[in-house]
């Protein structure tokens, strides 16, 4: 599914976080939006997810975005799991919301947990898992949801370098062929993961844009 963002403007109160931003993501493309903190990259994802009001237009597979939908899954940096649900029940959640019968959704959730390498950890609560494992659960949950577009908001920002590297490998593997918009402040990560890298910056940040672009090309 393709994603088109046209003249997107988002503001909180008096300040404008994003203004007149446009972006196209082709079907199956993995696009990374890179930029420093405060440049509006998380806001871009929240707008595409339908969680914040915006001006301009966002369409996914030709459908205008008007609010949140299971078609656009959002992966958070941390704490995106419901802490009272075990790993497998977190993965089951999108299926439960869709009305998939209990036994069926349990089987599917276990399958996805296996896919992200968490077989044997299905009955652990999020607080009993490491940060990397929690992100694996989030990934499994996103896959179970089967969205048209996956939106990832600095999903590995809170992980140590080694864990991050293995998560990056995993993402490349399991999201292959899935339309993905991935946000990060880490230039290396952007270059490693993206079919294409978009640098986002406003104001003071824009002046550093060339420097960042040079780093990306190097």
């Amino acid at each position: 599914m393709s994603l088109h963002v046209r003249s997107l403007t988002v503001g909180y109160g008096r300040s404008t976080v994003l203004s007149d931003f446009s972006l196209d993501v082709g079907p199956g493309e993995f696009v990374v939006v890179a930029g420093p903190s405060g440049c509006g990259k998380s806001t871009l994802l929240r707008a595409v997810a339908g969680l914040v009001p915006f001006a301009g237009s966002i369409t996914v597979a030709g459908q205008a975005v008007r609010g949140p939908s299971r078609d656009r899954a959002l992966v958070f940096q941390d704490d995106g799991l419901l802490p009272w649900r075990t790993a497998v029940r977190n993965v089951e959640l999108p299926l439960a919301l869709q009305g998939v019968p209990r036994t069926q959704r349990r089987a599917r959730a276990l399958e996805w947990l296996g896919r992200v390498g968490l077989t044997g950890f299905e009955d652990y609560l999020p607080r009993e898992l490491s940060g990397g494992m929690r992100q694996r659960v989030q990934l499994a949950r996103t896959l179970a949801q089967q969205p048209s577009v996956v939106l990832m908001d600095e999903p590995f920002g809170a992980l140590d370098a080694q864990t991050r590297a293995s998560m990056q490998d995993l993402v490349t593997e399991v999201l292959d062929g899935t339309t993905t918009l991935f946000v990060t402040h880490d230039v290396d990560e952007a270059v490693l993961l993206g079919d294409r890298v978009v640098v986002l910056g406003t104001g003071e940040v824009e002046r550093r844009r060339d420097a960042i672009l040079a780093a990306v090309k190097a």
Partner: protein
Amino acid sequence: MRWVLRIGSLAVVLVLWQLLTASDTRAWLRFDQLPTVVEVVERFAVQIGVAEFYHDLGASLGRIMAGFLLAAVLGVALGVVIARSRWLGDLLRPPLEVVRPIPAIALVPIAILLFPTDEQGIVFITFVAAFFPILVSTRHAVRALPTIWEDAVRTMGASTRQVLFRVVLPGTLPGVFGGLSVGMGVAWICVISAEMISGQFGVGYRTWQAYTVVDYPGVIVGMVTIGGLGYLTSAAVELLGRRVTRWLPREALR
């Protein structure tokens, strides 16, 4: 070793009580007026063989359960509604805020006038007492809920109803149980007071009745019974709370 100290300190208190009352000590405090520990224990032994004792227990427990459950259901429901909906909050908060500072026990005359039977009046007082702590803690818990959980579930396509039942209610349980514990405590204070004022049976009524007929050991038996019931019901709430909030980090449980 620590339990020796704990039991020892309790034993010292009981022995001191026995000595002061048995020797009819009068040192500003009039211990000669109070029954001895032995008299109380003897009285208790008699009471537990009498049907009336269990009838009173059942009556008080029934009133607590009715008032408390009503308060739990309405307190949680209204707490969520007030926290989640601006216009319903504006609509419901003013009358609630006007009634809230009034101690439930001050509503006894109103309850007597308003309800056809004393029984309903006592349940009403118990309900009011437990209702406000539950309402307020629920409202705070809903307000304090991290928005990320709701965002996560909404981007899975959850409806408003699903957000309520999958995120808001489970997420606020720790805060709600804080309110339920406080609510159970004040519910006992108020049910006993209301029984003393307007009841015809129940542990509170029986305790006051014993006082008026100069049955002082009976008064202490009533007090101990009330303490025991209060402890059991609070422990039940606490236990249930721990069971449903097992997902909390362990430090927070202490």
